[in-house]
């Protein structure tokens, strides 16, 4: 199931990248990124996914410590 969802997401990402080849310039203070809009969209989405997944790290760490305390 997980593999299927991952494959679907990857396929969707490739589709978006192919459909949006136009070059876009991103500015943030002194930094400047120029890339195709599809690539930038995918990067933004991936970064957001990482941030979203990292929200479960504290509770996971707590559960891991509790399990270790129970085991010892």
């Amino acid at each position, binding site marked *: 199931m997980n593999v299927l969802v991952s494959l679907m997401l990857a396929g969707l990402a490739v*589709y*978006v990248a192919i*459909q*949006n080849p*136009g070059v*876009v*310039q*991103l*500015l*943030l*203070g002194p930094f400047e990124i120029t890339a195709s*809009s599809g690539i*930038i*969209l995918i990067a*933004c*989405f*991936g*970064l*957001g*996914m*990482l*941030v*979203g*997944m*990292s*929200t*479960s790290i504290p*509770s*996971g760490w*707590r*559960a891991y410590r*509790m399990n270790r305390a129970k085991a010892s």
Partner: protein
Amino acid sequence: MRTILAFALALITLLFGFENQRLVNIQLGPYTIEGTVAVIMISTFIFGILTGILATLPSSIRRRRLMKG
């Protein structure tokens, strides 16, 4: 600490929004979305955050149940 972090993030988002006001067209299948680069990038980022939270939700619920039981 969290308030300072949230304030810094809001400031960076504002700066990003002011600096990237160029219009861009995004094709998604049969749909075309037109908006400024900043709005499209920020909404994509938020959509990614929601997807990430949804992806970890089942394991979080399972872990919480295990911790209670």
